[in-house]
């Protein structure tokens, strides 16, 4: 009986899928006809000639139609079946595994330079440690810092890069002018950044949602434009070069006799500085993570999350929401300041170009992609976004597919935009969307994203 019913139903769904594919093909044809089908080129007399690309046009339409048919016949039913399946509780082995995942990952990250040197050799390792290790860790740290403001306190901040800039310029200017060491300037840069964080916090305290986002965006631009125009102090567009590099407890990383390599009886190589920078940023990132995890379990962290959930209820419980918001801004900015001074020390050169809105957007998308409030999610998202960008710099093999004129870096943003759209369809609340409670009586149960607030501002 059931089997007999199933056959016509399937035929019906096949017909529906065909019709769907045909409609999609029609839409694709209408779109591609002007975009791909016709091309105007100037001929040898410099006259415009219309060239038609019939084959490519129909190939594209066919690809779209077949893809749509495949989706309607295979993917969509599978997704429907999956949605109907009852939710499974995690298997015991997975629960047991999850406990060891974090120590394992930290172990890998700590051994990363050694692994890279062993596999790629000393010469090539610098690039891998610097481009993948250090670069990703800077963004992991920035993501964790912004996570305090956006993920925990629910305050949408589009100008986070301003504090990164404040940190970088604080280090660069103070180190060059007063010759202070990196270790003194690191906390100082953090303090200055958090001071600016509070300064931004005050005027925007009453703003929420879109309005807060616009004002923070403007604040980020103000800082950048002040840096550009305050030429006497910041050297404007030309930037600041020759920034002192961090030393290994007073021992510089250079080829001199009192340099790092000479002191430890090693052959000089730039890799030692890179490895040192790697562990430095790793330490800073882990500090950010540790502080954030601790803060979440303290009253101030719970107040941030309560603020994200319901500000009026917070006030009715005697929580000073002004101070609570300002601490979130200040602490988030402080970590950006740390990261900024590290950035300046690593690059040796900074200019306003490094602190554009694009950077804020990248950091914010790391936080959103990772799942607001989730430490692990943010780290994974930073690896995917920044690591992905770096990988796409050298995808030489794509040239053999798309021809020698193909430049993969040109398509980076396109591919990223596409990946972002896909992830937001698949996981609208980020990679890790559930919230772990900060305290529990008997059992720590994760809270589903549908209940957790996203904040109003």
């Amino acid at each position, binding site marked *: 009986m059931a089997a007999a019913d199933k056959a016509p139903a399937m035929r019906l769904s096949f017909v529906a899928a065909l019709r769907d594919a045909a409609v999609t093909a029609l839409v694709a044809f209408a779109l591609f006809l002007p975009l791909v089908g016709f091309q105007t080129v100037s001929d040898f007399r410099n006259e415009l000639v219309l060239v038609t690309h019939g084959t490519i046009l129909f190939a594209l339409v066919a690809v779209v139609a077949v893809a749509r048919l495949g989706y309607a016949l295979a993917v969509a039913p599978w997704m429907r079946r999956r949605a109907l399946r009852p939710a499974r509780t995690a298997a015991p082995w997975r629960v047991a595994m999850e406990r060891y995942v974090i120590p394992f990952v930290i172990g890998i990250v700590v051994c990363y330079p050694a692994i890279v040197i062993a596999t790629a050799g000393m010469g090539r390792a610098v690039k891998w440690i610097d481009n993948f290790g250090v670069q990703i860790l800077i963004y992991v740290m920035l993501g964790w810092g912004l996570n305090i403001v956006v993920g925990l306190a629910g305050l949408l901040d589009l100008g986070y890069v301003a504090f990164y800039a404040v940190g970088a310029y604080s280090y660069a200017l103070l180190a060059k002018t007063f010759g202070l060491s990196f270790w003194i300037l690191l906390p100082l840069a953090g303090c200055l950044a958090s001071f600016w964080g509070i300064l931004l916090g005050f005027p925007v305290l009453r703003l929420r949602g879109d309005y807060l986002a616009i004002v923070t965006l403007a604040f980020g631009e103000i800082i950048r434009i002040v840096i550009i125009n305050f030429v006497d102090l910041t050297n404007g567009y030309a930037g600041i070069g020759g920034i002192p590099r961090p030393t290994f407890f007073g021992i510089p990383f250079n080829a001199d006799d009192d340099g790092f390599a000479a002191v430890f009886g090693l052959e000089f190589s730039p890799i030692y500085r890179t490895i040192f920078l790697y562990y430095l940023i790793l330490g800073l990132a882990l500090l950010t993570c540790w*502080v954030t995890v*601790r*803060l979440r379990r*303290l*009253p*101030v962290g*719970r*107040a941030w*999350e*309560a603020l*994200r*959930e*319901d500000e*009026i*209820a*917070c*006030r*009715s*419980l*005697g*929580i*000073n*929401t002004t101070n609570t918001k300002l*601490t979130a801004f200040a602490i988030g900015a402080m970590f950006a300041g740390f990261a900024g001074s590290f950035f300046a020390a690593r690059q040796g050169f900074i200019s306003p170009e490094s602190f554009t809105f694009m950077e804020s957007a990248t950091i914010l998308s790391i936080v959103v992609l990772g799942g607001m409030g989730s430490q692990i999610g943010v780290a994974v998202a930073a690896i995917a976004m920044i690591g992905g960008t770096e990988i796409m710099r050298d995808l030489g093999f794509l040239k053999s597919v798309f021809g020698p004129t193909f430049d993969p870096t040109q398509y980076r943003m396109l591919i990223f935009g596409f990946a972002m759209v896909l992830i937001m369809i698949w996981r609208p609340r980020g990679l890790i969307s559930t*919230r772990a*409670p*900060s*305290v*529990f*009586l*008997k*059992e*720590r*149960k994760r*809270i*589903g994203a549908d*209940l*957790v*607030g996203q904040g109003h501002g």
Partner: protein
Amino acid sequence: MSQGDETLLRVEHLTMRFGGLTAVDDLSFNARQGEITALIGPNGAGKTTVFNCITGFYKPSEGRLALRHGTASAWSRLEALTDSGRRSLPGADGALHLLERMPDYLVAQQARVARTFQNIRLFPGMTVLENLLVAQHNRLMLASGYTFAGLFRVPTYRAAMRDAIDKASAWLDRVGLLVRADDPAGDLPYGAQRRLEIARAMCTDPVLLCLDEPAAGLNPRESGELNELLLSIKADGISILLIEHDMSVVMEISDHVIVLDYGVKIADGDPQAVRNDAKVIAAYLGVADEEVERVEAEVRS
């Protein structure tokens, strides 16, 4: 002072205007210590506005809202406090607070007036236990040395945290939600959310608990349980100010009823007296046509 008695909260000439609309007009009443005072009235009478003024969410256009901690003799310093321009006046017989001078969070923190909301305002994405810990924020903040000592988990903070969890558990037990302590508050059924909101307000250690329609949306059994809970809170010596539509709740548990209509007080007394008051009946049930003018004239006078 005319009140040498057990007055806890004095509302004097409270007026609240929103532009041209006068939501509360020259309202005066007292709430006595250890009693349940009910504020009733038809929809739009201005009850929630009075609540928002008392809890600092609105700044009243006019009037004085005075609350005392400690003994009744503190009232003798009321005029001194009013003239001093300060928010509160500590003293040997307990502090005196002027609520209209305080921002909302200080009303809860220093004057220790807790409130619930007409439309429940829990933290839905936080667990039931976390909700009650947020309510103990100020004490825990102090114990954590404003976060700095707490970062290193000093023993005093850990002890304070244990106390806070014990207190939260005790309240959860009292409202029958202990088994759901680790569930998100947003997952609780409606009646349980109402009870949790009351427990959360009680975790702030209030002297006055303001409840805005706590029985709204409850079935008769839940409403009965609520009555018992409120009476047990009253037995602890906490005074309650209540806005309620459910007459079974009001008449059964309140000691003192104030009736508002169009922002004006039309009756003030014990439940029995209010129930038989002609003006109250007119406001609630309406009156026959020939009586309208007479009653309206009476109301205006």
